[in-house]
């Protein structure tokens, strides 16, 4: 049955909203496939504003992978701002995709990518605008299957009733496997069966790689802790495993990155140079759940940069990963790319660099002939003691050596990122940040002989995350966080010799408590999310839309009859035996290893990186059948005439291509 475009109904509303371009689609490299020649159709959603969602690599990769597949199509949708939301309600325009403006409710799958838990209320908005029943239990075969992905899917329990399924880990192969299951189900007449939807969910669950919350029952102890999580159907696995793509060179996506007309948060092209991280920072969920490290080869990166720039016209390339300077061939890679693009007004950036992996040659290649405005490092903890606890092995001497080199080479500004509220932290640990910042300034003044030196300290509250060694720890309360940050601010401002040279940026503790509630919450938290949404909660990641009081009021109501409350979920220590809401979701990490690593943290013992030392048995590789993939390959980037292709075509005096 043909599905009609909603654009004609949407168009009259667009002249009444802010930044209408974000709703019209038509981006360079976007794809619209014929509806009727496909039998599996995905609506991919990034549950935040277009400007945040459109550069998201995960959505862009899956969009391209799915659209390349035969008889499969994918379109994108983002959260609409309140101005358009109210007009859509008034004029009864349902949720739409930006590509062909087809109704979200007409697709087979609504895939939602949760980079953060703060997008949950936005998903409820889209479900409602799309006419999809809020609860999985109330949907039938006419509704899309709602599948959550992204890092938050490693504990989807707070949204368990609202989603039909969750997929853990890398999506490239998983989305194709799910498409095949849906295709077979359709071929078997599934959509026409009375229990068709239950049948499809069961088929997905039995693959072992798709978590279907409704097929698991959760029971609780009288004190509120979880007693057991168990499958309620035969053939449904006790644990659901994450997906891991091996050999990134075989998955060079996105090949043609989207180029939006609207301004977005990342005005550059990104190339993922490796996936995973084994540095072992204990607070870092991304590093824990994306193991092992899989590098893209230097030649693979070179090819993606070349093709991507030709397809997009971007002026900046970000070499993306969790710790980009750790790539085994980062030096020849940056030098080779800087050589290739010299004189083409193309700049390179490494979004995440560690203090200890940074070196000045690398930084020079990145800024060849360009501006040296600022460098950013993340020591995360203020004292060496706390850095041992979190296993971020950066000494103060490392940091001072690095900033000395940077200031000597022409940089004038250093940004330092920290967290507040780390396990075992005291005021003293945080106050040492002030000493460190002053030493950075003093060093900069000394080596440059200039007073024009700046350092910005940026700090936010630490939120313990599932599948990390800190998953058991009590979060610091928001009042305590704010008090500690106030002491740091006073320490930074009290010394007149440095106060003007040091900038201070911080996030207050309240949003972190809500993030903590959602990160480590269980199914009972779903009612809190629902209450917040009903009370108007949207865009919780935006400070101007976020309301702590709305969350607390909703929690008071939703948890009134439960033996638990917000404090129970956030500022409470868990012990080794407690069943955690995500224990049945397998990130590959051995639970006992995580606990030992937590105990090591308490005694300040550090863990090395398994890329350079023997395996320390985190469990991922044997459990998942994966292995570390690192170079060096020994290959180099040969010089190429890049970005000049096609120039002959426009130059005066050259032969007209039509007559060649």
């Amino acid at each position: 049955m043909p599905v009609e475009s909603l654009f004609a109904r949407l168009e009259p509303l667009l002249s009444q909203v802010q930044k209408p371009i974000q709703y019209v689609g038509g981006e360079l490299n976007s794809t619209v496939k014929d509806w009727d020649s496909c039998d599996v159709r995905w609506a991919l959603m990034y549950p935040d504003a277009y400007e945040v969602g459109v550069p998201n690599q995960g959505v862009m990769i899956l969009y391209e992978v799915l659209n390349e597949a035969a008889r499969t199509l994918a379109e994108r949708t983002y959260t609409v701002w309140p101005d358009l939301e109210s007009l859509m309600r008034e004029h009864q325009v349902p949720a739409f995709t930006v590509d062909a403006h087809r109704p979200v409710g007409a697709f087979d799958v609504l895939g939602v990518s949760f980079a953060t838990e703060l997008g949950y209320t936005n998903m409820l908005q889209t479900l409602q605008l799309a006419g999809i029943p809020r609860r999985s239990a109330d949907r039938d075969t006419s509704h899309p299957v709602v599948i959550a992905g992204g890092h938050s899917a490693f504990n989807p329990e707070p949204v368990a009733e609202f989603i039909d399924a969750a997929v853990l880990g890398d999506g490239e192969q998983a989305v194709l496997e799910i498409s095949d299951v849906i295709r077979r189900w359709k071929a078997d007449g599934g959509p026409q069966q009375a229990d068709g939807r239950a049948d499809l969910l069961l088929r997905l669950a039995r693959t072992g790689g798709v978590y279907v919350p409704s097929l698991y029952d959760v029971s609780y102890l009288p004190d509120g802790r979880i007693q057991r999580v168990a499958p309620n159907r035969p053939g449904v696995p006790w644990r659901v495993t994450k997906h891991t793509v091996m050999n990134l060179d075989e998955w060079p996506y996105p090949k043609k990155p989207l180029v939006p007309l609207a301004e977005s948060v990342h005005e550059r092209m990104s190339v993922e140079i490796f996936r995973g991280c084994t540095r072992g920072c204990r607070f870092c969920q991304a590093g824990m759940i994306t193991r092992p490290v899989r590098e893209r080869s230097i030649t693979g990166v070179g090819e993606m940069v070349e093709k991507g720039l030709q397809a997009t016209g971007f002026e900046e390339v970000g070499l993306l990963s969790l710790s980009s300077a750790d790539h085994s061939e980062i030096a020849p890679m940056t030098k080779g790319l800087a050589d290739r693009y010299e004189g083409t007004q193309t700049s390179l950036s490494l979004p995440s660099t560690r203090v200890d992996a940074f070196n000045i040659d690398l930084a020079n290649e990145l800024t060849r002939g360009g501006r040296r405005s600022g460098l950013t490092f993340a020591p995360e903890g203020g004292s060496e003691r706390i850095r041992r606890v979190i296993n971020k092995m950066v000494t103060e001497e490392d940091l001072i050596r690095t900033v000395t080199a940077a200031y000597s080479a022409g940089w004038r500004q250093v940004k330092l990122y920290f967290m507040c509220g780390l396990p075992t932290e005291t005021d003293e640990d945080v106050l040492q940040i002030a000493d460190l910042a002053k030493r950075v300034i003093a060093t900069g003044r000394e080596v440059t002989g200039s007073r024009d030196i700046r350092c910005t300290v940026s700090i936010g509250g630490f939120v313990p995350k599932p599948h990390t060694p800190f998953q058991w720890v009590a979060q610091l309360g928001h009042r305590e966080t704010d008090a500690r940050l106030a002491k740091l601010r006073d320490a930074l401002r009290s010394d007149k010799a440095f106060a003007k040279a040091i900038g201070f940026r911080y996030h207050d503790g309240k949003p972190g408590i809500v993030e903590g509630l959602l990160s480590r919450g269980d199914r009972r938290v779903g009612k809190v999310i629902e209450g917040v949404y009903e009370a108007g909660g949207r865009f919780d990641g935006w400070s101007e839309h976020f309301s702590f009081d709305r969350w607390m009021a909703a929690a008071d109501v939703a948890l009134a009859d439960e033996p638990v409350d917000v404090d129970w979920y956030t500022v409470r220590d868990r012990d080794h035996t407690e069943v955690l809401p995500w224990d049945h979701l397998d990130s590959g990490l051995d639970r006992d290893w995580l606990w030992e690593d937590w105990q090591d943290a308490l005694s300040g013992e550090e863990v090395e990186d398994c890329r350079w030392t023997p395996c320390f048995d985190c469990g991922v590789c044997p459990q998942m059948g994966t292995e570390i993939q690192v170079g060096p390959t020994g290959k180099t980037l040969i010089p190429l005439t890049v970005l000049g292709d096609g120039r002959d075509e426009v130059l005066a005096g050259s032969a007209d291509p039509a007559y060649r």
Partner: protein
Amino acid sequence: MARTPEGPPPPPTVQRLRVHYAKRGRLRFSSHRDFQRAFERALRRAAVPMAYSAGFSPHPKVSYAGAAPTGVASEAEYLEIGLAQRCDPGRLRAALDRSLPPDLDVLEVVEVIPGPENTKVAPFADRLEASVWEITLAGVEAGVAQRAVDLFLAAERAEVSRMTKNGLRTFDARAAVVALSAGPRAAGNSEGPCAILRLVVRHVTPAVRPDDVLAGLRQIGDLAPPSAPAVVRLAQGPLDEPAGTVSDPLAPDRDAVGG
């Protein structure tokens, strides 16, 4: 001491080209900044040998003139680019058009022939004296629109207010209007009544835009269209005031090339 970029300064401009383009369909919702980003990326994809400004963040030499507001379509947008290598205007037009998304269309590229040395040439933007706008009012009878137009034209002034970056501004929307007429939609369309306004407005400061004239028609002529008006700029260029017409701003360049 301020750092300067290493290496030689960027190559000089050897050729200037004027570009006539259109903003159509759903891409009329792009803002001028959106268009700028899209255009500069298209220049890179098409490998146009742009001349760049000097300094740490060199910018390609592009000057934009009189862009249509967000949400308004246009058949008559203009900009000028400076090149570091000479290009063939016709082939550059085709390459640029291919590199832009559909609905952002490059219609013509004309070379700027420099005048004799030491002569001062008026900037291109000065040629854009007025615009011709077409406003489609679905659900409005042509006769009703005509009565509102007559009242508007008979008025001395039409005070309207618009929210600008600097707050609410009130100004006269009447004096800048050179010509305004109403007619029915072309025959063959049977979807109810529809009036078409043809509007010629002189470019003044503060700018009088089609929505300002519509506000004036509402105030003075009680004209209240039931749905959002569709606006398109048909032309902009030198104004022939007595005739109420606007001519092609690229004609002098085309003549210079031909001569």
